[in-house]
Every structure is written in C-alpha cells, then in structure tokens.
C-alpha cells in the first residue's frame, strides 16, 4: 500500500481515511449490539432492545457506541469502563479475559444491569476494550420494583470480578449467579450472550486494524474525540451564554419530588446543576449519579447536537452535577432498583431549561418514564420458591407534541427500547391481555396534540392471584404542555372492580381481578 502521506493529495486522503475508519468503528459496535440482541434470553433485551454496546481505547475513552441500545445504559457504561480499568489494570489483562459487574454506582444504575468488559487484542497486544450491558429480568432480592429499603434487598450484588480467565469461565461465580436468581437458565444464558458479543467486536477490531495497518487506535480515537468535541462546542457556541432554569414536579414515592435544574451555557460548554432537587427517598427510585449524567447528557444531545455521534469527545462538553444526598445523586447503599422512573424524566427537565433558547426544536413534556409492568406469581410446572414466573412488560405513554407536529402515540422517549409483543409475553408467563389500545384523546390539546397513551388490561390466565411490582409515574402530575398547549392526561392504575392502586410498590392483584392501566398522554404544543 502506498504511503498516502507522501502523495500530492496526502492531507485530504488522510482525512478521508480517518472518516472511513470512524464509520468502520461504528459498524463494528453495531455488529456487537446485533449479536447481543440475537442471542439474548432476557425478554426486555431480546424483544425490546434494553442493551448497549461500545468500544473504548486503553484510557477508557468511549470511541463509538452502537445505535441499537438505550441511552441510560450507554452513557453510564461509558463511565463504568474506567472503573474496570482501575480495578484491573490494562497490563494485567489477557486475551480471553472477561470482566463483569452490576454495581449500580459504577455500572448502569441498578443490579439488574450486567456490564461485561472485554479486552481486545491485535497481533498479541491489547489495543482496546469492548463493553456491553443488558437488563436481566430477575436478579433475586425482592424483585425488579421500588420496594427495597436498601440496595442489599434488591438482589445479588456483583462487584468488579473476573468472569472469564483466558477463556476459562469462572464457574464459582456462575454458580453464585445461578443460585441467586429466580430465572437461572435465562440469567446464565444472558451472561454467555454478553461475552459472545464482545468477542465478535474484538475480532472485528483486529481485522480492521490489519486492514488499515494500524498498531493502535490512539490516533483514530483522538481524531474521533477531537472532531466530536469541536462539533458539539460549535453548536453550543450558537446559544446565548447565560443561566437557564427549570423545575418539574413528579409523583415520587410518598410525596412529590421536585427536579430542579440550572443550565449554564458558556464558552467551555454546558453545565447542568441539579441543586435544589428533592432528597433521596426511603425506597428504590433513587438515582446513582452515573445514571443521572447518562440521561441528562442524552437530553442535551437530542436538543443541541443530534447528528453528532456519542463518544468521549462529545460527552466531554457537558458537565453534570447533583448535590450528594439528593435523589439524583443517591449515596452508595440506597435502594435504586427503579431508578429509571426518575432518571428518564431528566431530558424533560433539560428541555424546560432550553425551551426559550431553541423554540423551534424543544417539544412539550411527555410520559418520559417507561410504564413497565412487572408481574410475578405462581406458574404451573415451576415450583421455584413462591414465584414460578416473573415478567416485565415494556409499555409506554405518549410523547410531547413538537413545535411543528404532533407527539408520538405509545412511543418510548427518552428510553430507546421497544414495547413487548402481547403474543410473546403470553407465551412467557400465564397472563392474558384483554386490551392494549390507544387511549383516545389522552394527548394534550394544542396547535399540535401530544401523543396518546394506551389502555391496557391484564388478567392471570390460571385464575390465580399475582403481584404487581408497580413502578409508574405521572399519575398525580401529568406531562405539561408547552407554549400554551394543554397538559397530557395523567396515568391511572386500577383493578377491574375500580380499586385504585398505588403508582409504586408491590401490590396484589386478587384472583379473578384484572389490572387496568392507562398510560399518560404527552403534552400539547401551542394554543389550540
């Protein structure tokens, strides 16, 4: 191959070569994510895409993330890889090693997310790291819901451990994992799936380096991070400098929670400070800072720089802080299982700060948190403890209306997951859906209407009682309209006899009764 630097068109060719390699890296992590999706056991991963995948350099800088995946995972995984490197120094890593954690503070916010990180080698030398995350349906403890008083009640905790040593699985750890979940088969299968997808990523990276005759990805990594950082800064520079504030109130656990933000635009970038936000609560809707940062950064990216790939460079433009002890910076040990309820509200909080700066881009408030229906109960032919089945059904309400068009009905935002198919969930658990339809008229009124929520009705197929691990919000405080648009309809949770259920916490659906949910509608935009 000709040394391109020495040709007449060298500089231009080099630039183009960098672009080509960058595209390739994005393709590599997309392959990694697709492999994870296709081999996953967890229904919320395989049907809904609750996963993330990315490639990192040896300093722990994220160079590329897969488009497939969900923001809460990606941006927090981006931070977690540095913790892996702290615990397992690069020079101790060997080919065939895999490392694992589900530490909510140094991983992706709750015990249900396993993060696996794998060193990638080329010609015998370590050149980078692949990391991926998926959401497991059951990790023991009291189950996936907000009822725990501390993190120890929420299930098995896996510190930063070596899962696989030069190709040898850590069977002791695998046995511990199997013994601490109600779904041992699926959980073990998902661990294999995480390993496998990183292997595929590592193999592709090595092939790419051979093809482009690279010894390291440092130069490429710096190019990616520099270009991305500069591009985000250029977008930020278009905004008038100043401090912009917003506050949003959500249902919370026993009392409403105020999410308060001050967003500062200056020449160095954007900072968001959540000072003034309500304190931690006694059960599991608290948010570790890593997850707060993940969804805040996501909201900023959507509003300010949607076309710029997510990586260490683009993420470096945002500085995000929350006071320790606030619900957005929960201290280690706090209960955090359902941290998504509060974390997924943060893009709306950020949007409120930016609404006057970007009036043509910022939508009204939406449902924002997933309306995941987690059910468990007895199942025929499975006597494992009291609970033969545990299932999480992903559903959504409506999104907020946009300045120039309606909101989206029954659509996840900011989460990137898919809804669960009825026919698959009924095969996975003894439940029957009697209804899953749009909730007509639930989107807020306005020049452009908010997206509609859904009406969902579920019964136990065997006529047994079952538990609902409720984790819903926007029941007391509906999504607000913007620029004169009406609010979306608030959500409701009831039994078929009309009994109102709480939005959060484990409650019994008695035998013969059905669960009735109405998910919220998005806010409207502009006066009607």
């Amino acid at each position, binding site marked *: 191959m000709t040394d391109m630097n020495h040709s007449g068109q060298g500089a*231009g060719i080099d630039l183009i070569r960098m672009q080509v390699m960058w*595209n390739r890296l994005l393709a590599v992590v997309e392959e990694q994510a697709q492999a994870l999706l296709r081999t996953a056991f967890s229904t919320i991963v395989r049907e809904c895409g609750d996963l993330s995948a990315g490639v990192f350099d040896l300093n722990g800088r994220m160079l590329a993330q897969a488009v497939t995946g969900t923001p809460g995972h990606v941006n927090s995984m981006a931070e977690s890889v540095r913790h892996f490197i702290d615990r397992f120094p690069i020079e101790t890593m060997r080919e065939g090693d895999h490392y694992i954690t589900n530490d909510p503070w140094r991983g992706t916010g709750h015990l249900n997310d396993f993060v696996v990180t794998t060193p990638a080698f080329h010609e015998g030398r370590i050149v980078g790291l692949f990391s991926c995350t998926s959401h497991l349906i059951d990790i023991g403890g009291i189950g996936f819901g907000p009822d725990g008083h501390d993190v120890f009640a929420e299930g098995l905790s896996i510190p930063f451990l070596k899962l696989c040593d030069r190709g040898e699985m850590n069977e002791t750890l695998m046995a511990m994992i199997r013994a601490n979940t109600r779904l041992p*088969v699926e959980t073990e299968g998902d661990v294999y799936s995480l390993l496998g997808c990183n292997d595929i990523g590592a193999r592709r990276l090595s092939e790419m380096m051979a093809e482009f005759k690279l010894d390291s990805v440092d130069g490429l990594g710096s190019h990616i991070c520099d270009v991305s950082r500069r591009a985000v800064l250029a977008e930020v520079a278009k905004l008038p400098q100043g401090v912009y504030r917003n506050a949003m109130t959500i249902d919370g656990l026993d009392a409403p929670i105020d999410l308060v933000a001050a967003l500062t635009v200056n020449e160095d970038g954007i900072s968001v400070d959540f000072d003034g936000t309500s304190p931690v609560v006694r059960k599991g809707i608290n948010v570790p800072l890593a997850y707060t940062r993940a969804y805040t950064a996501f909201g900023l990216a959507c509003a300010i720089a949607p076309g710029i790939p997510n990586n260490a460079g683009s993420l470096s433009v945002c500085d995000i802080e929350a006071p320790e002890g606030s619900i957005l910076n929960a201290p280690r040990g706090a209960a955090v299982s359902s941290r998504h309820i509060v974390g997924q509200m943060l893009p709306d909080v950020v949007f409120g700060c930016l609404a006057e700066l970007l009036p043509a881009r910022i939508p009204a408030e939406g449902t924002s948190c997933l309306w995941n229906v987690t059910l468990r109960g007895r199942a025929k032919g499975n006597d494992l403890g009291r609970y033969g089945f545990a299932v999480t059904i992903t559903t959504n309400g409506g999104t907020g209306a946009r300045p120039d068009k309606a909101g989206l009905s029954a*659509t996840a935002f900011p989460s990137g997951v898919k*809804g669960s198919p009825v026919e698959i969930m009924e095969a996975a658990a003894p439940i*029957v859906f009697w209804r*899953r339809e749009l909730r007509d008229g639930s989107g807020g009124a306005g020049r452009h209407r908010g997206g509609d929520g859904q009406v969902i009705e579920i019964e136990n197929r065997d006529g047994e009682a079952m538990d609902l691990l409720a984790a819903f919000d926007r029941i007391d405080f509906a999504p607000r309209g913007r620029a004169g648009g009406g609010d979306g309809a608030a959500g409701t949770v009831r039994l078929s006899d009309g009994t109102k259920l709480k939005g959060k916490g484990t409650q019994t659906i008695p035998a013969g009764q059905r669960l009735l949910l109405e998910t919220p509608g998005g806010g409207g935009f502009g006066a009607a």
Partner: protein
Amino acid sequence: MANARLAIDIGGTFTDVALDTGAGTIGATKVLTTHKAPEEGVIDGVLRLLGSHGLGPADIGLVLHGTTLATNAIIERKGAKTALVATQGFRDVLEIGYEDRYDQYDLGIEKPRALVPRDLRFTVPERITFDGEVLKPLDEAAVEALVPAIAAAGVEGLAIAFIHAYARGDHEARARDILARALPDVSISISSEVSPEAREYERTVTTAVNAYVQPLMAGYLGRLEQRLQAEGFAAPVLLMTSGGGLTTLQTARRFPVRLVESGPAGGAILAAEVAKACGEARVLSFDMGGTTAKICLIDDGTPQTARVFEVDRQSRFAKGSGLPLRIPVIEMIEIGAGGGSIARLDALGRITVGPDSAGSEPGPVAYGRGGTEPTVTDADLTLGRLDPDGFAGGTMQLDAAAAKDAIDRAIGAPLKLEAETAAFGISEIVDENMANAARVHAVENGVDVASRTLVAFGGAAPLHAGRLAAKLGIDRVIIPANAGVGSAIGFLHAPIAFEVVRGLYVRLADLDPASIETLFAEMNAAARPIVSAAAGGSELTEARLAYLRYVGQGHEVPVALPTGPLDQEDLRGRFEAAYRALFGRIIPEAPVEALSWSLAVSTPARPAVARPGTAAPAAGAGEAGTLRRLFVPEAARFDKVPVHARSALGPATRLAGPLVITEAATTTVVPDGFDVTVHEEGHLVLTRRMAMREAAE
C-alpha cells in the same frame, strides 16, 4: 414448438423484457413503465422484442414476471381502501407498532403511517391463547353486525388478524366466511393464511398489506392475462416471488404481499446462476442502480433467505423505520447508495453520501437536466471512470465540467480540497457505506465476507465493485454478461417454488416425531399443488427447516432438517452446529425449543438454457483502443490507463489493472492490483494479483 421464454420485470422507471429464444440466443429490451396500465408497456416491449427476433406469440412457451408494482403501491400509499377486523381490545396494533424510535437523537421523527386508519379498524369479541385454546368463542353476531359499516365505508380490501391466530385459524376463517357472504366484492385476507407466525404487529401488518395491494395486483394480473391472450399468447404466466421462487397467477392473486421486491430477487437468482456457472461456492451479490444498492449472500448457488422484510422505510433507509412484512424473502440489505445518491457535508464537516438520490429527474449534475447537487455519478465522471462521450452507449452527453464544479462547490471548497480529491472522498464514502453494510449483513449471518467472490451487476455496480472488493478483502469479482437487465435475466433461471411456514411450539425434550411428520405432511399438501400446477411434470424437491433457539431466547436459528422422522439427538446436534457457526459458542446443557417449521417445495433451479451474451465470442485478447486519465485510489493519484471495449475481449483475454472496460450499459473499472479475464460465457472475472500468485505457488 413453443420453447422460447419471456421474462418481464416492471420497475419504477423501466420495464425490462428479456427473451430466451430457446435456440441459444438471449435478447433484451427496455421500455418506459406505463404506470396507469402497466400491461400496456409490457405488451409493447414484448411485441417489439419478439419482432426483432422474428418470433411471435405462438413461439412462447412460458412467461415469467416480476414487479415492484406492489412495493410502489405501498410506498406511495396507492393501494385499496382497506379495513381491519381485529380481536376486541386490539384495535390499534398497527399504530402502536414497536413503540420505539428508529432514530434515538432526532426529536422530529415521523413514523410510517398505518395502512388502515383508525375509523376503518374494527374489533369483535373472541380470544385464543398462544397454545391454541379458545378462551372466548367468536361472537358471530358481532361479525355480522360489522357488515353495514364496512359496506358504507366503500372498502375494497379487508384484513382479519386475531391475537394468536397462528396457533389456531378457525375464528378467522369463520369470520371471513361470514363477511365474504355479505360483502362479495371485498377481497379478504386472513392472518392465519397470509402469515401464521407469532408477534401480532408483524402478522397484522403483513395481512393488512396483503389486503391493501390485493385489489390492485389482482386487477393488474387479470388484465395482463387477458391482454396476453388477446395477442395470441397461450403460454402460462408465472410470477416471481420475494422468496426467489416462481408461483402461479392464481397464488399470486391470493398472496400478492409475496410479490414485494420480486425484481431484486431476480437479480439474486442471476448472481446465484453465475456463481454456479463459474464454480463459486461462496458469493456476495452486489446490485447497484441509480438509487439503491442491494447486497445478498449466496452459498452453493442458493441465495440466503429470511422471514421478514421491511418495506417503505422512512426517508433515510433507517433500519426499523418501515413496515415489517413476515414473508419468505431472499435476504438482502438495501441501502441508499446508487449512482444518483447525493453527496453533502454534515455538521462535522464529514462527507455524507445518500440516502436520497437525484434519481433520473433531475439526475446527476452531469446529465445537464437541472441537477445542482453532486452525486456519485458526478464523482465517477470526475475521477475518469466514466467517459462523457460514451455514456449509455453514446446516446447521452455528460457535462464533466459542471460535475466537477458542483463537487468543488459543495465539498471541495468548504474542506479546502481539490475537486478530484473531494470526488475521491465521495466515492470512498459511498464504497465504505456499502462495505460496512455488507460486513454487518455478513455478521448477522455469521459469515466471513473476505473469502467470498463478488458478483456485481446493475448500472453502477461495475464502476465500484473493484474498490468494494478491495475494502472487503475480496480477491475475486465477476461482472456478468448482460448485467444491465440482471433481474429479468434472473427470472429465466428461477425455480418454481412455494414455501409454507407454520408456528408450532415444541420443546426438544418433548419432541414427538410423529406429530411433526403429520405437520410436514399437511404443509406438503398445501405447497405441492401450487408448485405442480406450474412445474410441467418436472421433478419436485422438498426442503425442511426448523426454527430453534435455547429456551428463554427470543430469536431463532434456522436449522436444515432431513426428510423423514426426526431424532431428538440429531436435531440438537444440528442446532448446536448452526448456533456455533453464527455466534461462536454454544450454551452447554441449555434446553432447546422449536418455534416454527417451514417446508419449501420446488423444481430444481433451471440450468441456463442459453447463457446470456452468447454472441460469437470475440477472438481478440484485448487491444487497448485509447488511454484515459483515471484516478487510481491505490496510488492516490491520476494515471493514464487503457480503455477496452468489452465486445472486443475474447476468452484469451488477460489484462492487468488499472484499466477500464466499456459497454453500452455500464463501465467496469479494474483496479490496480487486479487482473481481468473473460469467462467462456462472457462474464468478466477480476482477480487480485497477490491471490493469483499465491494460488500458483
């Protein structure tokens, strides 16, 4: 004796007609597609082509036909007014969809519009479980009661899709019978026949699409049949399906959704036949036209197949933004990369190419028809790959200066690059986009792309195939003869085939071989008559597949089955082999389950009766006519390279790249580092020199 065959491919712009005279000659012509009455263009092209070969309707023994009409009707929302009858409580399956966003960061996305608006979505009380039990019987009176509303709406097509109907179809069949009696002019499609597989969104969409295109397609096919008869054609007409097989007119009218993308399927068949003729076991087919590029994997002469196809992707060809159809298809990926794809700079100053295309109107800047944004074709011209005076056989003059100016304006000046370097950037990005698409596609199928041979056809492919091969590490590229009408040529080779898929849940540990045999016997009984009706006594083969996964997984792996009763151990072994091939490692001891089963009945693929390009081979070994200034990416500069006319290259040809080979419909660029030879059937074969040396050592 009537042993000539016709192949007709109706595309969005052109209708291609190919003729196999049965006496060793292939002819072809292109006419403009007549959108209001497509059969008019077909008849015009057919008669013209027959006339030029001195043949008449009575000489034709078989008519093969594929079309994008169904696809275009969906994309342009020009299908029938369609209603849906669903299970009570599930009125909005079509609109709720996947509940996701295909672009995570774009706050302004639009989802594809549901084919059936809410006021035409009806429900009736009934309920079936995933294992086929009746939870609530069908309320027949409620079905009856829908008649006035459906009739008053002036509906032409009707889809019935009940929850879990794949497990038990009697409720749907009964509802159809009731409605058909009362609404005799409405075409009714039921999900348990159109797409009997789990996941309500995909099944309902597929059934609704079938109902949506049925009146249009059935009407068109009926008129075509009449017109052909009126012209004196007595030959049977077979339709190309998305799955790459041929089926009868009658079946096509019942399941028109299976005709979606049948044109590109023909291209894949052509590539498969070329692969067989050249003895290539592992092929990547690459079809690049004006708007899109299609890439398909072909193993042992058989294109890869899949069970879901996404139609009508919103603007950017973004994965997940279209309507998912669950039908047997030739698995290919299509990306917005063609000669007309437009090049721009994004917010980061990076060159992007496509997915939007300048199409044929206004077309690339070089066409001089009002296009102002630079395209891939403009870059190809600037880089010397196209001859401004010899485009489309010299019938069209290209404006090289205007192309170069446009590239300079849009890309070169802002990046401070010379126009040629910017043109190379455009070309590199589009080639890299295609290479990345091919790589992701390969990993999704667990194959190593570098060990494959590239078969390239379609107007723009031969210009880019060499560079694409270099990027993918591929050592061998074949440019078939008559590549310009590749799809229609492909129809001539297609087998007559029909595939039936049935959902039946079985744990491997509980496998009852007899019940599976019974299922396959039923499927055989459904598929065989459809194939025999068109097979003309040809021997039929049967291929069985099971879709297996570990218990608890959500995505299945297709596993080929032997004919005859199954054995548990053997089946597990087959599954593990397939799983390992795809994902590298198996999960020890984990239980395995089957979700669905498929059976395909087909005739063998037709050995080419007459190979394309059978004009007497030129004797010459290739005397270079002229030299042309061509950008050589391997050297990162322009060089003077020889230009050869393809018609002058005989079997003795052996030339070393870089060079250019021209013909009326396209131009082949042979990169530096590749040699080119000519196969006895007229295909150009490009081989990487390094690989040739290694092979010789």
